[in-house]
């Protein structure tokens, strides 16, 4: 494709060889960058199987660290909490996000531009600012609530879930809106001409067509929630442990092959989710 026929334009040959030399340089750069991107991941995975108890050198193969992981009640509990938060927040933010996307794509209303800005803000705002704002807000409103009713609320799984919903809604909206953009509105009109009511039209025409977009948004929300550390760290409470926060606490103390093992499992989950989302997008 790059090699234009040399017979027609003989003077191009010089440039062509220079251009392919350029492509060679670009290729070398790409290989080096890929090594840079993947070497740490390979090392991490390899050292989850090492016998070395410091987890930074290769001294032989073992599955011992994974066995110990399964026996660690604390880590297992944290993993279950993380899964619970990710599932709950994904379900809620997918429903809310899809509704919002439908409203934004189908209707024109006053304040639409403003709401659009509000929707994009959680994506671009520094995560730490959103995290500390949520912490301040929960402490502030719980304080007022206690003053007014004597009811004492605590930060924990509930506040983490609320926070995760708040920061994943926008991502769901972006993905679902993209799938609504290519939507042929005449299909809905045809369904209604044939006597379907609003709900039937939505259930049998609109929903199946935008479902890949909704699933894509849900997978993104799920991954973001599962992997999130900063917002989780700020909005969790004493006694509630979540996986990224737990891993962070242990990493701060020392590198251990056990953390290598749990990190490898987390990587595995993420990679599976990318595959799933790509697969769904291909089918679209």
């Amino acid at each position, binding site marked *: 494709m790059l090699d234009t026929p040399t017979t027609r334009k003989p003077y191009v040959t010089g440039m062509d060889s220079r251009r392919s030399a350029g492509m060679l340089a670009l290729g070398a750069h790409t290989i080096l960058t890929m090594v840079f*991107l993947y070497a740490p991941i390979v090392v991490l995975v390899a050292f989850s199987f090492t016998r070395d108890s410091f987890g930074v050198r290769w001294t032989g193969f073992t599955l011992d660290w994974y066995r110990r992981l399964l026996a660690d009640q604390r880590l297992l509990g944290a993993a279950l909490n993380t899964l619970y938060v990710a599932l709950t927040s994904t379900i809620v933010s997918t429903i*809310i996000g899809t509704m919002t996307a439908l409203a934004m794509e189908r209707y024109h209303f006053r304040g639409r531009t403003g709401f659009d800005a509000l929707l994009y803000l959680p994506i671009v705002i*520094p995560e730490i600012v959103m995290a500390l704002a949520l912490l301040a807000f929960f402490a502030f409103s719980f304080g007022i609530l206690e003053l007014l009713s004597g009811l004492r609320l605590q930060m924990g799984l509930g506040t983490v879930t609320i926070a995760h919903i708040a920061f994943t809604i926008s991502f769901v909206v972006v993905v679902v809106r993209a799938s609504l953009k290519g939507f042929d509105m005449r299909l809905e009109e045809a369904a209604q001409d044939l006597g379907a009511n609003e709900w039937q039209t939505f259930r049998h025409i609109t929903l199946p067509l935008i479902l890949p977009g909704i699933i894509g948004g849900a997978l993104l929300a799920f991954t973001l929630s599962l992997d999130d550390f900063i917002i989780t760290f700020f909005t969790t409470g004493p006694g509630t442990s979540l996986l990224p926060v737990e891993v962070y606490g242990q990493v701060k103390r020392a590198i251990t092959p056990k953390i290598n093992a749990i990190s490898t499992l987390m990587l595995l989950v993420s990679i599976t989710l990318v595959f799933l989302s790509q697969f769904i997008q291909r089918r679209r």
Partner: protein
Amino acid sequence: MALETLTSEPRESRVAALLRRSERFRLGLLLFPGLFWLLLFFALPLVVVVLYSFATPGPTGRVEWHFTLANYGTLFTESLYVNAYLRSIWAGVLTTLICLLAGYPLALYIVRRPPRWRTVLLFLILIPFWTNFLVRTYAWMIILSNNGIINSIIQALGLPRVALYPSEGAVLIGLIYGNLPFMVLPIFASLDRFDFTLLEAAADLGADQTRAFLRVMLPLTMPGIAAGSVLVFIPTVGQFVVSDLLGGAKVDYLGNLLQRLFTRSNPPNWPLGSAMAIVFMAVLTVAILLYFRITTEQDR
């Protein structure tokens, strides 16, 4: 017949009005949950931060509601805070620049590959994009540690071991590593829309490769560069995980101070932390507006 249309017309418009009302009702129903959630759990918390930034920090960490501007004063006078801002912005600029220099050629190469290779390479960029930031930073701790791979190689060469981390260099590596995919993907998207025959046209008109790149390709892919830069710059300036894990406790970045003021320091100081966050957002907004002005002016 004339009478019939007369009588049926108001009835039809009443139906239309009813439909319009139900239409508006449906819009409200669709809009309400998202609006409610984002106003209550996103916008309102930011307002609370603004409120806190004008409050007085009490001796035990409890906030006292006396209006003061002292928090903002502290930020601009104490070198600890001024330095943290400068260090973080500098790290952000450096990381963005290096990611751009490494990411643009990478995106260019991927775009020019045949479809099958393109898919594979793009997928290889997507995987780190989707994986846990914490885990990927941790991987560098293993590599750079005192008995780690790089030091083993250094020792095998007969050289003395080097303390590679914690250090500011290690922080920079971690930042570049963590953010590179965020630069590559938007640039790839804009290169994908770029018509490469324009380069041939430029060559036919006598432009050499450098000139064709600077005058044709670069301006036309500027939106991707701008988007990528913003996606890298914002999280880099506000990060605290990378500098916490790879930088040790020696140097303070903005994010580390924010984290400490809110969750760790004894006692915590939320009003000062809030003021710090507000100034941070203001600095970011100005920086991004400036950046967009510069990049779009080049476009003209």
